[in-house]
């Protein structure tokens, strides 16, 4: 019993340490992003009072300007403003939007769900497409199958570089203007309206993930362990499902964090193109209006979303690949020291 408890503690502790390290990194990222964004915008963005009072060319009198400055704390020194902003970020109070005069947190809370829904749907669709294409391409036999696999390979390369603004436009022309199947503009969770934006976001990511998956699937299928499995009588389907697929999927899982980031990039374009409200649109509008609190809030939120996604990716990788779970000390297992010794010895001799 006591041995089991010791092992259990040994397993849990590195896990906890890993989680704490990740959370620490997340806080650090949020802090640095908030700081950089704040100072960059204030240094280059001129006087934000203009934005508060209705943009360039507003006819506000000096009293109105002074009142606005006092209301938003702009009469304080920059460092004080920064500390105030930082304290607010820590307490989830991001201040009021200059342009829209409502709390930033309210704006973000309003726009976040739509964008997240879009991004998650797109990532799921991209995975389904990529998996289907990769497994089909790997299993293709015969001259016709090989030709199809080659065509799919080309399609993946083109798909991966498709710009969202063009793919979305073509989809609108074909499926909205011409066929009238789906609306060109949509908002909220209307499933029919979500189709075109989701496909627009998913296809480039699917092309990218598909290439990665196919490469690693092919590599795994040529590995000695796959030969060994075949030599035990495993059928091609079994070799794929029990052996090579996990190896093929792993790199794509690792890259899904990056893919999620590119989906947020794409959301800015797609939300503009399809007229959908969302985090991307909000960020774009705030950028154009120099609405500092909104830009800071949106950017920090995007950075935090990325950190959370990377955390999930890490967990998924560890679930799929036991080698990443750290060397769990099992009593009486030799060999633990041999690879370590090899790792300690550098390149030339050895």
């Amino acid at each position: 019993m006591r041995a089991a408890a010791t092992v259990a503690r040994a397993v849990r502790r590195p896990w906890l340490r890993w989680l704490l390290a990740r959370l620490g990194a997340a806080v650090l990222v949020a802090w640095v992003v908030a700081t950089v964004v704040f100072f960059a915008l204030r240094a280059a963005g001129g006087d934000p009072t203009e934005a508060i009072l209705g943009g360039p060319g507003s006819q506000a009198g000096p009293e109105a300007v002074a009142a606005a400055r006092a209301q938003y704390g702009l009469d304080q020194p920059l460092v004080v403003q920064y500390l105030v902003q930082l304290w607010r970020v820590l307490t989830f109070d991001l201040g009021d939007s200059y342009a829209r005069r409502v709390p930033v947190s309210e704006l973000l809370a309003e726009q976040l769900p739509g964008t997240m829904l879009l991004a998650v749907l797109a990532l799921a669709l991209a995975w389904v497409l990529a998996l289907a294409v990769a497994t089909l391409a790997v299993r293709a036999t015969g001259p016709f199958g090989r030709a199809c696999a080659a065509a799919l390979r080309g399609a993946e390369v083109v798909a991966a570089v498709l710009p969202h603004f063009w793919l979305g436009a073509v989809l609108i022309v074909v499926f909205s203007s011409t066929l009238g199947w789906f609306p060109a503009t949509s908002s909220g969770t209307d499933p029919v309206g979500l189709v075109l934006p989701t496909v627009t976001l998913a296809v480039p990511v699917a092309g990218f993930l598909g290439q990665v998956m196919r490469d690693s699937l092919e590599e795994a299928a040529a590995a000695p362990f796959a030969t060994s499995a075949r030599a035990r009588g495993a059928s091609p389907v079994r070799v794929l499902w029990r052996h090579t697929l996990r190896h093929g999927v792993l790199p794509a899982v690792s890259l899904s964090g990056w893919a999620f980031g590119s989906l947020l990039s794409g959301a800015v374009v797609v939300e503009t193109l399809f007229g959908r409200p969302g985090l991307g649109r909000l960020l774009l509008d705030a950028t154009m209006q120099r609405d500092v609190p909104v830009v800071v809030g949106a950017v920090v939120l995007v950075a935090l979303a990325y950190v959370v996604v990377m955390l999930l990716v890490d967990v998924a990788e560890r679930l799929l690949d036991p080698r990443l779970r750290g060397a769990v000390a099992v009593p009486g297992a030799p060999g633990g020291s041999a690879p370590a010794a090899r790792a300690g010895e550098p390149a030339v001799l050895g």
Partner: protein
Amino acid sequence: MTGAAAAGPGAGPVLEVAGLRVAFPRGGEVLHGVDLRVAAGECVAVVGGSGAGKSVLARTLVGLAGEGARADVRADRLALLGRDALRFSGRDWRAARGRDVGLVLQDALGSLDPLRTVGAEVGEALAVRRPGAGPAAPRVDRAERVLAALDEAGLPDPAVRARQRPGELSGGMRQRALIASAVVARPPLLVADEPTTALDATVAARVLDLLAGLRDSGTAVVLVTHDLGAVARVADRVLVLQDGRVVEEGPTAAVLGAPREAYTRELVAAARLGDGPGDVAAPGAAVLEGRGLRRVFPLPGGGSLTAVDGVDVAVRAGEAVGLVGESGSGKTTLARLLLAADAPDAGEVLLDGRPWSALPERDRRALRSGIRLVPQDPLGTVDPRLTVRAVLRAALATAPHPSARRDRDAAAAALLARVHLPAEVLDRRPRTLSGGQRQRVAIARALASEPRVLLLDEPVSALDVQVQAAVLDLLVELRRDTGVAMVLVSHDLGVVRRVCDRVLVMSGGRVVEQGPVPEVFGAPAHPVTRDLLAARVV
């Protein structure tokens, strides 16, 4: 033919192959008519150099010749347990693999799926659904048979091992687990392709004993190997394969004791503990000396590993010292300390009686021409963009003598001539050369600065036996002609015997035995030395 259909172990051959030809669309015919018969309880070894077609033969016997490429398999006869395997469909082969014939590949780390548990891998042959053979064995039954197979394969604590992943096992245990995975369904035939190549001598001996045990319990074993020591240990009969043809065949003792073909004679000669270096000049004063050397590496999970633990070593001018031991014994770390590629945690290295390891690298640079390395993997130590000419010219630039620096192209050609390579090699990139040629270029590169000491790290372990012999001859010739001192790191006592005067046996970071080569090899005192010798003697 059909009369033998009911043949089980004991009646008729388990495997009968006649006139087997295998061709690939690219690369042409690899096997040109091979005959092979294996009876139950018999072990037949197939030996030959790289490119002889051994691995293709092994894969053809389990119906996997066409992996990755479309293979054309033709034969007068290919019978497995009396059934005509030439008429096997893909489904028939799948039913036969794992149940009628098992395959063990070399490199057990790569041959077991690193993401699955050892138990799942070993049990796979029981878990697969075989076309036309009913459902797979029930899960509980399977688990028991997996543990029994691991136990028979000699793994301690089978229940623990079954839950571990291949990466958590040592090399020897992985190879045993791989063998267990091939024999768990008790196939009458086992094909083992280089099962001991990646293993240390002592571990390899135990794996071979395991194969011998399987043979004794009635399994027919085909052992594909280049290692005649392994053959002598377990094989009843030997087939010598050269360029896809069987050049010699017979009982093991006869073939190894009195080889008829020139090729077999070369193989046997290379496998024996051959002659020594012959007459060389008497050694002079010490050129390279290590005193009380110690090197400790921190381990990733905390703790540390003492790779070299208080070693004293002296190399005198013109002398060749062998450094032998199993992997992890510290011989490579010691060589790095002597080369000042790494700094000792305690102790000191002297070159020509002057400080060497204690110098700052800036001061050491000018002295580096005195000591040179010949690496195990020459390809990894040359810039992939450079030709042999550029590599040799850069090496000559560090030579202390101005004459060599003046006409470097001529000097480079002269260096190649010294290692018996034609001057055309100058304008080729090392990766287009054969293994033996690369190693000769590496030796030429090391000789460019006319060093007083050469450090050779497993210089021939990646080469075929005949090529090994030629490179070793070259080393002996260089000793005689130039009087350069050598430190030769090897796990192979035959290599040390051929080149060296003195030998140091290392184990666990310490020198456990040392002395003149004939004395140490003639009367080994330490168990490690005896194990290493046992692996070598044919």
